[in-house]
């Protein structure tokens, strides 16, 4: 038993080290956000200040970038969640010999470096909007579309969606495989049309997966750098502005931003945890009630049906 105990202590120590590695750099950075020197330093702690947050707030480019990031994030959610849903449904219905290829095409963006996605997006759409030879010279997009759509924000939405939709597909498909086909058949049998089955039965069932796909889609879009840095063209997102700042030099204002982001994710994680516990509590209450009903049924005699002319 002593060796088992020693092993457990070692494992515990290991977990401790792991989290030092994980959180250490973030904590060190977090402290610099509140320290007065203009070079981000942790020790000596020369004095508490919130100046860096004010500086951050007044950083015009970052605010513009943040705004763009939010627009792109919303666009990516609006595009990739429906795509993921549609693709997961098509996955079940597609001609069986084509399914392997379809799967490969849909997950390939996950195996592709972000820069490649960004580059291919820009090259393709630039020619799609500009070239006169594009697609046999017949089907090129009319000139006015370029002014409307050939923009960093649009290309970023398209480029990011290509791999974010694959995340959404995997999340939604994981839940879809747990769907009981008998539910669909029951609804059909009661007279529902296939579209009604989709809206009344399938969609409510998939709702949790759609929600988490939406959250993951937004966050992935928001923090993406590799694809966006190409696709954004001359525009800016929060992350590309950030990258520019880090390249130029170091300022505690960046630490302040990190503190804010960590704060938000902490808040999100806590909210998620609370919601999950509530859900579990409700589920266990339901189970308890079903158990009571079961007991009532077997002990208090079986039910006597009322006489009703049907």
């Amino acid at each position: 038993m002593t060796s088992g105990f020693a092993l457990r202590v070692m494992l515990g120590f290991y977990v401790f080290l792991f989290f030092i590695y994980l959180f250490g750099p973030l904590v060190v950075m977090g402290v610099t956000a509140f320290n007065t020197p203009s070079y981000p330093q942790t020790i000596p702690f020369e004095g508490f200040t919130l100046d860096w947050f004010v500086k951050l707030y007044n950083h015009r480019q970052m605010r513009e970038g943040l705004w763009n990031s939010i627009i792109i994030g919303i666009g990516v959610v609006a595009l990739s969640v429906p795509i993921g849903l549609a693709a997961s449904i098509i996955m079940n219905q597609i001609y069986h010999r084509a399914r392997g290829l379809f799967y490969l095409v849909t997950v390939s963006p996950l195996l592709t470096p972000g820069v490649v996605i960004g580059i291919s997006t820009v090259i393709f759409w630039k020619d799609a909007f500009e070239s006169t030879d594009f697609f046999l010279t017949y089907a090129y997009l009319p000139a006015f579309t370029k002014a409307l759509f050939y923009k960093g924000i649009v290309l970023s939405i398209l480029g990011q969606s290509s791999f974010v939709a694959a995340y959404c597909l995997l999340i939604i498909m994981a839940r879809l495989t747990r769907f009981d086909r008998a539910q669909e058949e029951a609804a059909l049998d009661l007279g529902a049309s296939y579209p009604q089955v989709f809206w009344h039965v399938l969609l409510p069932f998939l709702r949790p997966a759609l929600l988490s796909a939406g959250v993951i889609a937004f966050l992935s879009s928001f923090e993406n750098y590799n694809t966006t840095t190409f696709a954004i063209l001359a525009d800016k997102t929060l992350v590309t502005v950030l990258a520019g700042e880090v390249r130029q030099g170091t300022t505690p204002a960046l630490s302040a931003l990190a503190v804010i982001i960590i704060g938000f994710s902490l808040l999100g994680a806590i909210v998620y945890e609370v919601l999950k516990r509530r859900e579990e509590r409700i589920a266990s209450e339901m189970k308890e009630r079903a158990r009571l009903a079961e007991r009532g049924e077997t002990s208090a005699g079986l039910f006597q049906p009322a006489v009703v002319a049907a």
Partner: protein
Amino acid sequence: MSSRAFVILLPFLVIAAFWVMARYEARTVHDPTHKSYWERNGMVLGIMFIVLVALWTLFLVTLPYLYMVVESFHPRLPPTKRFGPEDYLTLEQYKSLFVSPVDKEWNTTHLYAFFYTIVVSSAVTFLNLCICYPLAYFMAQAGTVQQVRLLMLGLIVPYWVNEILRAFSIRLLLAAKGLINQGLMGAGLTDAPIDFLGNNTGMWVGLSYANLLIMMFPLYNAIESLDKNQIEAARDLGAPWWKIHRDVVIPYAKPGIASGCTMVFMLAAGSLAAPLFLGGPNTLWFTAIVYDFFFQAFNWPRGSAYAFLLLAACITFVMVMLRLFKVKLGEAIR
């Protein structure tokens, strides 16, 4: 027909071929459960699904990739000359990786960067596997429910701090005036600050740090579904702990290991943040070279060729991993 037009037609031809096959099969083989696509989805939803999926698979994935590949087989030309007679197919962009177009000598810089990138990415992948495995095992098998919940929370929060800021935090630690050099000098171990960024230590740490959790989650998911009784049984039979891992846990967790390794390798090799912000002035990183072709040299065809080579390297790595672990793609990506 121009090569670009051909490549754009290609996916449509594939779809048409499958469609013909499907029609033929539907006509010759009776399937009692068969319902037509339109019957199953209705007109409105049916069209919506097809439009969305076609937009994605064709216009966001297949066509851009193919188009990039075609671009890499063209010479670099000013916009006015594109699609003109000088716009022929050529291998010169790929040749330039081996022979420099400037001095006609071996292009040692880029070749070195290419292999360096692959070697370092593989090493970082292995390093992260070693770092994450014990914790993943602890969380999945040994920890109590409460512990696992807390640890999970601890993993998710830093996961959403973006790559740039994580690189920044490593830089604060390792910079000449950073905490670690402060500590080393304070303890009297060195007189002058060690140049962690110049000697690529920063980049290594940054790559590992940025992709730590990418390895963690697939590993955890794989080990979590292993029946605890199997480990108990092995222990009862008197197997020492390392044998239990070698013979029971690791074989079972293979899909998770393959999945984690694939993702970490891909993200490390394609990483821009770590080499740009944590590397020294002499750091060579293939992805950064690709980046420069687009933003400094404005040589898109050559950048495309290099990007395609990067993609090919990643695909090769994935195939090797899947073959090595005897895992199907569908098992690795979930």
